[in-house]
């Protein structure tokens, strides 16, 4: 340990993994609530799932999976000291993330249009199980969307850091950690898709 700057990449990565554990448990609480409610209202969850747009859900899945790939490619690029390509891949990831949010926005708007949101007069007329289904749908996709938004901001900052050379070939732990976070966001969506869209 010489010099004033203490650097421990393995420690930083361990810290990030621990943080991801907390994120998984955070969503885990919602998955517990979901499994309990689905066990209680299997029929209503089936009906609720039918209201969701499977095509858009699958497109969004592909968008996120592709964005995970581009994050990995940007790490590969920085390892090869290809700064321009790293920035390009990161920007692609940001655009894909935004695409995901826009599509999600259209889906939410459609649900609002049909009165399928908590507090809507129409939803209150549906059986209780469906009300819970949409309560959970908005909570879980909303929290996930918030994570996507945070991830986009993180990736944008990382792109700037690559541009200003604070992330470079011999020092890219921040980019790796940012990538890990983005993969987590992706993985959680992989679980949300079957739980809601394929519930029917």
């Amino acid at each position, binding site marked *: *340990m010489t010099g004033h700057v*203490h650097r*421990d990449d*393995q*420690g*930083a990565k*361990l*810290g990030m993994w*621990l*943080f991801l*554990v*907390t*994120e998984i*448990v*955070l*969503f*885990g*609480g*919602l998955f*517990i*609530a979901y499994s*309990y*409610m689905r066990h*209680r*209202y299997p029929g*209503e969850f089936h009906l609720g799932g039918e209201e969701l747009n499977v095509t858009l859900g699958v497109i969004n899945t592909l968008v996120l999976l592709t964005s995970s790939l581009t994050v990995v490619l940007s790490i590969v690029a920085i390892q090869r000291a290809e700064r321009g390509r790293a920035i390009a891949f990161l920007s692609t990831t940001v655009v894909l993330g935004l695409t995901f949010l826009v599509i999600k926005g259209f889906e939410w708007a459609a649900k609002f249009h049909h009165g399928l949101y*908590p*507090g809507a007069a129409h939803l*209150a007329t549906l*059986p*209780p*199980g*469906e*009300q*819970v289904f949409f*309560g*959970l749908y*908005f*909570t879980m996709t909303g*929290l996930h969307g918030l994570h996507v938004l945070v991830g986009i901001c993180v990736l944008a900052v990382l792109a700037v850091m690559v541009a200003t050379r604070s992330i470079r070939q011999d020092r890219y732990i921040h980019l790796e950690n940012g990538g890990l976070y983005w993969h987590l966001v992706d993985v959680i969506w992989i679980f949300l898709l079957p739980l809601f869209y394929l519930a029917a």
Partner: protein
Amino acid sequence: MTDHASTPQPSFWTDTGKRKGLMAWLTTTDHKRIGLLYLYAMTAFFLVGMSLGFVMRLVQLTTFQHLITAQTYNALFTVHGVIMIFLFVIPGLPAVFGNFFLPILLGAKDVSFPRLNLASWYFYMAGALLAVLSLFTGGGAPDTGWTFYAPFSLKTGTNVSLAVFAAFVLGFSSMLTAINFITTVVRLRAPGMTWFRMPLFCWALFATAWIQVLATPIIAITLVLVILERFFGIGVFDPAKGGDPVLYQHLFWIYSHPAVYIMILPAMGAITEILPTFAKRPIFGYKAIAFSSLSIAGVGSLVWAHHMFTSGMSPFAQMLFSLLTMVVAVPSAIKVFNWVSTLYKGSIDFQPPLFFALTFIFLFCIGGLTGVMQGALAFNIHVHDTYFIVGHFHYVMFGGTGFAFFAALLYWFPKMFGRMYSQKAIYASWVPMFVGFNMLYFGMLILGMEGMPRRYYVHLPQYHTLHQVATVGSWLLVAGLLIFVGTLVRAAFKGERAEANPWGGVTLEWTIPSPPPLENFDTIPTVTTGPYHFPQEAR
């Protein structure tokens, strides 16, 4: 173990950076200063929480109520619980002594993420500020009890949303600290400091941090659901919309039961540091204590539903949770027996830290055993939601964690502040504290057995005598606490200079000056023996 350089570094109390005075403290990334920042904030919150409890006891001095309204009483026990639990007991030992001593005990210069560490303190203060704001804004102070049980917490007009959000922010703070501690323990142990050469306080913090990482997010999401429920009516906990309030209880206790181990494990760790120093011999059963910390963390995560035996559950689940609850007593008892065995044939040096550590063992045993009693289903139904629960909880959390906090403070005070307190004044504070404590909380245990429900504004005449005993006890307790705090505050400014090793301890913190220099060690020590190796004991 270390060779001190000929020109000693300035102590961490001296401002060496660009900023001076208060700004130097508020922007510090030094783990020792952050530990002290927590200590100051927590002392303030503890005194506020104590005052609220004091007023509650005053209300119970008579059978007719005129001091405050029933609504204020509801707010009092809610806010007393929120402050004491979320602002004092949960962060308590890890945030103060963990921050200050974990790196030193490991032979490191700081924690793994010093800036994140400062951020945790700001999250803590932000959470505390929000909690205070929730008292005066919106519909007034929350009146749900610290458990925020649905459906009442969804329907009450008081400011539950902000209070719950405050708890969320505080949870975030404790999670970040936990991530920091785990990484520090894994990455920053000094050369030669193998896992089984770590002081047991580090093991306790390590186990605690894992519970925080694995359990805190559950309360975070549960509290978010309460907020969403209040603002948007998502219906998950609302029976009118198909939700289930019992689901709230499960989610709440999945975190909040492990949380009591978050509160007690570091306390046990601190006691484990104190006993060998004053018995002048190695801890008895090092590995048993280390693994009992981990098994308390593990089994303690599987017992949450024992809070809910009356909430509706299958008899099989009740039996299972009852059994698991009693299993937790095994690793706890392993610790107690090892502590007592450490003292056996030791060359005991009787000093205030040891005295408070022994008080901890005594009070914790009462708390622990009443806990096992409640694990039994039939008895649990009898005392559910009575003063027995309140008494038990205070024996464990105040008699346990609180007194361990005091013991740790007495033990490490000379190291932290470089000054020594008046031992006579500390003993003088112990007498009213101990007597008052037992009058207050043992009184509550009996009241509960006789059927006095908790959280009631008024009580029936048959409970009157014990309520009076408890209230008088609360006066003694508060008096003792004030003497204790006053003694230490005085000592921090005017106490005699303390030596580097006033107690004859052998862990790494006693090898460096009091107070420690900015970077703890001139050269990182190399560890060649276990943590409690007393040379004079070599036979």
